[in-house]
Structures are given as C-alpha cells and as structure tokens.
C-alpha cells in the first residue's frame, strides 16, 4: 500500500542515523527556520563593520553589549510571556520601581543584600499579581498590565518622592560594575538569562507547556496542563527578571530614578517580534530573540556612530521594525507556497 510504504520509507530514513543523533535534525531545522534572520543579522553586522568606522572595535562591541543588557535581559522572559499568547506592558515601570525600592532599602538598611532582595521581591510581587489577574480572572493581559504600568509607575514616584534616590552604600555600585573576563555583571546576567530561558523553553516540559498554552489554552487545560499556575509563574518570572534588571540599572547608574526607561516595554516587545516571536502565542525561539536584540542594538549603535540626527532615528527604527516583520511574513508565505 502506498501510504504504508511511504510511512515505512520515511520512518526507516528517520531512524537510520542512530539514536545518538536523533536530536540533531531538529536543531538544524530550527536553525534553518531562523537562519533567514541570522543571515540578515550577519550581513548587517558585516555591512556595519565595513561601512561604519569604529564599529568593529573591542570597546565599541563591549559598549554595544552593555547598551542592550536592559532590553536583552527582559526580552528573555518577555519571550515566554508572548509565547503564552499574553503581553506585559508593565516591565518598564517594574524596572523603575524595583530600582527605586532597591536604592531606598539599601540606603535605609545599610545592607546591599537586603536592598537587592527587596528590589527583586518587589518585581516578583508585581509580576505574580499580573499573572494572578490574568490567569484567575481571564482579564486580557494587555489591559491588566497597562493598568499595572500606570499603577507601578505611580508607586515608583511615591516611593522616591519623585526625585532620584541616592545610594549611601558604596558596595551597591559594585553590582553593576564588577567585571569578569572583561564583561560586567549586567552583561553576564543577560547571557545567563538567555541560557536559562533558552533551556527552559526548549528542553523542559515547562517550556513546551508554555508554547502549547499559547497555541490553544483550552486544549492545554484539557490535556492536563495547569494553565493557571503556568501563567502566574511566567508573569512572576518576568517580574523577577525585570526586577533584577532594575536593580542592576540602578547600581550602574548610581541612582534610583523613578523616571527611567519610559517606553522600554515597546522596545522589548519589538526585539522579540524582530526575533520571530509571534504575538498570538505558541511560537518562540531564543536564538531569534537574541538576534532581534542584537539587530536593534547594532542599528542604534551605528546610528550613534554615524551621528544620525534624532529625527531620522525615528524613521530608521520604524522602518527596520516594519521591514523585519515583512521579511518574516514573506519567509513564511514562501515556505507555505514552496
């Protein structure tokens, strides 16, 4: 029988490479899927290195890395939130709030540890609250986190009295500036987040459940996924990571600024979408997000090196985003047609 033969032929071909390499084709295929983007990034990088003087210098690259840490770190968990089919607009407010909290508590308690812990805990609390509202009451996350964005920014202002908060414990500054192998703690944190959440997404049941829930929440629930807990966990992770980013930012900048990072949420979401994460849930790739973050960072950095006037920077950012999603659509439609 035709189908059976087909099936047999297929399955023998599949099994042939031996058990040891079973994981490989998948990895390669995923690479192929995202490779379009990677290729574009590589071309962009080469192009910038050639065309933009001083782009490819050690110190510029280090600076570039440092400048994307905030977006990059938070993008790793935003990826999970988006994969879940949700969105979190409150991250920028969380960064500001946790930074202020860490500054206030460090100064008042005199202990860096307590201050940092308090900052991160504040982030976790906001995240878990978002998750609770979304999961328990089924409120659309765009609105729930929009409310949180306002509310938490208000908390940041109230905590700080509206003014930048000074830090009286010098050890706090080391957090942001201590370096190892030439890279500072914030950069390492970002790298670490990419690794952790890459693993979480790809090789754990948790990650697969996130994707499944983003694909069809009701089906996931019927298939035994604890959808509610999953959502709370993901939002809480997002809060924790935004909290860590906020604390590190405060330490790097030397002050807890309640006005910081306005608009960060949109930059983070853009980076994820650039990286092929679907806003309707169920699709995400950590390599994609990494590339998305790097593309954004490189373009911004190059515009700085080239001294592009601010007004035109708006045009470039808008155009890049649009072109990237158009490219993504084009790739997909070609694949369907092929």
């Amino acid at each position, binding site marked *: 029988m035709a189908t059976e033969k087909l099936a047999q032929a297929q399955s023998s071909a599949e099994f042939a490479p031996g058990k040891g390499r079973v994981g490989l084709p998948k990895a390669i295929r995923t690479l192929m899927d995202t490779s379009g983007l990677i290729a574009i990034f590589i071309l962009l990088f080469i192009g910038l290195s050639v065309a933009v*003087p*001083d782009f490819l*210098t050690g*110190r*510029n690259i*280090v*600076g*570039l890395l*440092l*400048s994307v840490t*905030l977006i990059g770190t938070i993008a790793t968990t935003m990826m999970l939130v988006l994969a879940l089919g949700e969105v979190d607009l409150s991250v920028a407010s969380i960064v500001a709030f946790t930074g202020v909290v860490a500054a206030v508590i460090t100064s008042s308690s005199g202990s860096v540890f307590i201050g940092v812990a308090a900052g991160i805990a504040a982030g976790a609390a906001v995240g878990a609250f978002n998750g609770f509202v979304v999961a328990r009451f089924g409120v659309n996350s765009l609105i729930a986190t929009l409310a949180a964005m306002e509310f938490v920014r208000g908390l940041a*202002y109230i905590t*700080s*009295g*509206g*003014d*930048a*908060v*000074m*830090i*009286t414990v*010098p050890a706090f*500054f080391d957090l942001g*500036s201590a370096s190892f192998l030439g890279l500072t703690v914030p950069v390492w944190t970002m790298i670490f987040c990419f690794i952790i959440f890459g693993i979480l997404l790809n090789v754990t049941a948790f990650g697969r459940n996130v994707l499944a829930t983003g694909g069809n929440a009701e089906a996931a629930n019927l298939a035994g996924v604890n959808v509610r807990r999953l959502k709370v966990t993901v939002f809480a992770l997002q809060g924790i990571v935004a909290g860590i980013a906020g604390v590190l*930012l405060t330490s*790097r*900048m*030397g*002050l807890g*600024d*309640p*006005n*910081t*990072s*306005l*608009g960060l949420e949109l930059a983070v979401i853009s980076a994820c979408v650039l990286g092929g994460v679907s806003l309707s849930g169920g699709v995400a790739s950590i390599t994609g997000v990494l590339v998305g973050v790097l593309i954004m960072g490189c373009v*911004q*950095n*190059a515009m*700085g*090196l080239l*001294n592009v*006037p*601010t*007004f035109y*920077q708006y045009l470039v950012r808008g155009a890049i985003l649009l072109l990237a999603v158009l490219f993504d659509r084009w790739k997909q439609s070609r694949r369907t047609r092929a």
Partner: protein
Amino acid sequence: AQDDVTIGFIVKKPEQAWFINEQQAATELGEKNGFEVVKLSGVDGQEVLSAIDNLHSQGAQGFVICPPDVRLGPVIKRRAEQYDMKVVTVDDRFLNSDGEPMQDVPHLGMSGYKIGQQVGNAIAKEIEARGWNMEDVAALRITNYELPTAKERTDGATDALLDAGFNKANIFDAPQQNTDTSSAFAAASPVLSKRGNFKHWVIYALNEESVLGGVRASEQYGLAPEDVIGVGINGSGAAFAEFSRENPTGFFGTVAVSSTMHGRDSAENLYTWITGGDKPPANTETAGTLMTRDNWQQVREELDL
C-alpha cells in the same frame, strides 16, 4: 467666601522633582498667606487647556504656569482672558506668534540659554584649573532637540565653550531619546567608543540625569574621574546622590537653580497682583549657582532645595 483667593500652578512635567518642589513651595506660601493653590499638570496643550477649564470651575482667579511649549503662550493667554484670570509664567517664557517673548505676561525664570552659558563657563574654568590644553579636550554634548528648552541650554553651553577657546571640531553630539540617565548612557556609548583618541572629556546636557548617563559611559570606557568634567543643570536628587558618593566621579558639578524660590516667588507675584497689588515685572531673571562636590550641601541650604 467671596474674597478667598485660589490660584492654579500648572507644570509641564508633574513627575519631575523640580516641579514638585515649585508646586510645594507655592502651596506652603499659600498656607502662610491664606490662599489656596491648586496643583495641576499640563503635559501638552490639550491638558493645559483642560487644566485651565478645571481651574475656572473651581473659581480660581489666576495661575502660574510652566508651559509644555512656549509657543502655546497666545492660546493660554486667550483662554485665561476669556475666564478673566491672571497668568504669570515660570521657568519657560511664552513666545508670541513672531517668536518674540510675550512682554505682557509676567515671567520669572532663568533663561535656558544663559544657564547653558553658565555651564559652559564653569566647564571652561575647570579645564583651565586642571591645566588641560583646550585644543585636546573633547566635548560630549548630549542633545535632545525634540525639546526646545533643551536645545537652548546646550546651545548656551556650546557658545560659552567656543568663546573660551574650545575647538569646535572637538564637540560631538550624542542625541538621546529620553531625558533620563539610561538613554543618555546609550547615546554616549558609541560616541566615546568612536573617539578613543581623546584623553580629556567634558560632558554637558539639559539636566543632571543626562550628564550622569554620560559620566557612567565614560567610566565604562575607562576614563578616570580626573579626565572628565561633567556639569549638569537643576540641583536635584540626582546631583546630591552623585556628590554624596565616597569617591569623586567625573560629575564635577551642576548649575543649581532654586526651584523653591521659583515656585514661591512666582506664586507670590501672582497673589499680590490678584489682591490688588501691582502687576509683576515683565521679566525677572534668576541665575544659577555652581554646585560642586565641595559646596553642595551649603548651596543646597542656601537655595532651600
């Protein structure tokens, strides 16, 4: 009661420490002198007009305003006249349709350009004090041309520096997206990495937060505090935070202006005017005081910040 005085205090950025201080000082004065101050925000023209309507509903006789855009002057004035309210400006002065200051609206504030000049002069003086060769120094000018006042300030500082013999070719722009520390940091990074050949840097911007971002970036590129002179504007928490650090940083000083005095005096002028006194002078210019690591606490006290 009939003779109760209520005035409004409308500011363009209600979250900023500067404006919180101003509104607070006005409120305190009001408590002392027996009039009420309604604090309102007007982040854009639409909101300003709503705020004025709102004041009208509360029966206010006038308001102090720092407008989100100086060219809103004619519209704001017209609205005020329509409601028979008196208006004075603080910090940012109204311009009429020809781009000239509106002489008939009393103003109290510092000129953005002049305060910028103060920054430039402070930097030039410190360059000399450190014995650097003016020719070899680079300037990191963190700009925000979306905000006209920001442009005035950085222009003032630039002109002062050039007058003092600074090399025009050594001034490099870092356009920032926001007015906070991290966006200044992001803007400064590529400029510093591109100009690795300069040993000495001066940094200026529209406010302290932005200068701090530049200073942090300079540290990132391994520039020692002795090689950097950053001078900010305002005299807010960001500067105090920096001055209270254990070791000196590249943030040399800031031109502090008394927001408290601005808030108090402008409210007082308006109150006097409303209660039958003279119309305040067309333009009261205030100046800033250079605040450095050595004198910051003292200046802070003097300016009541």
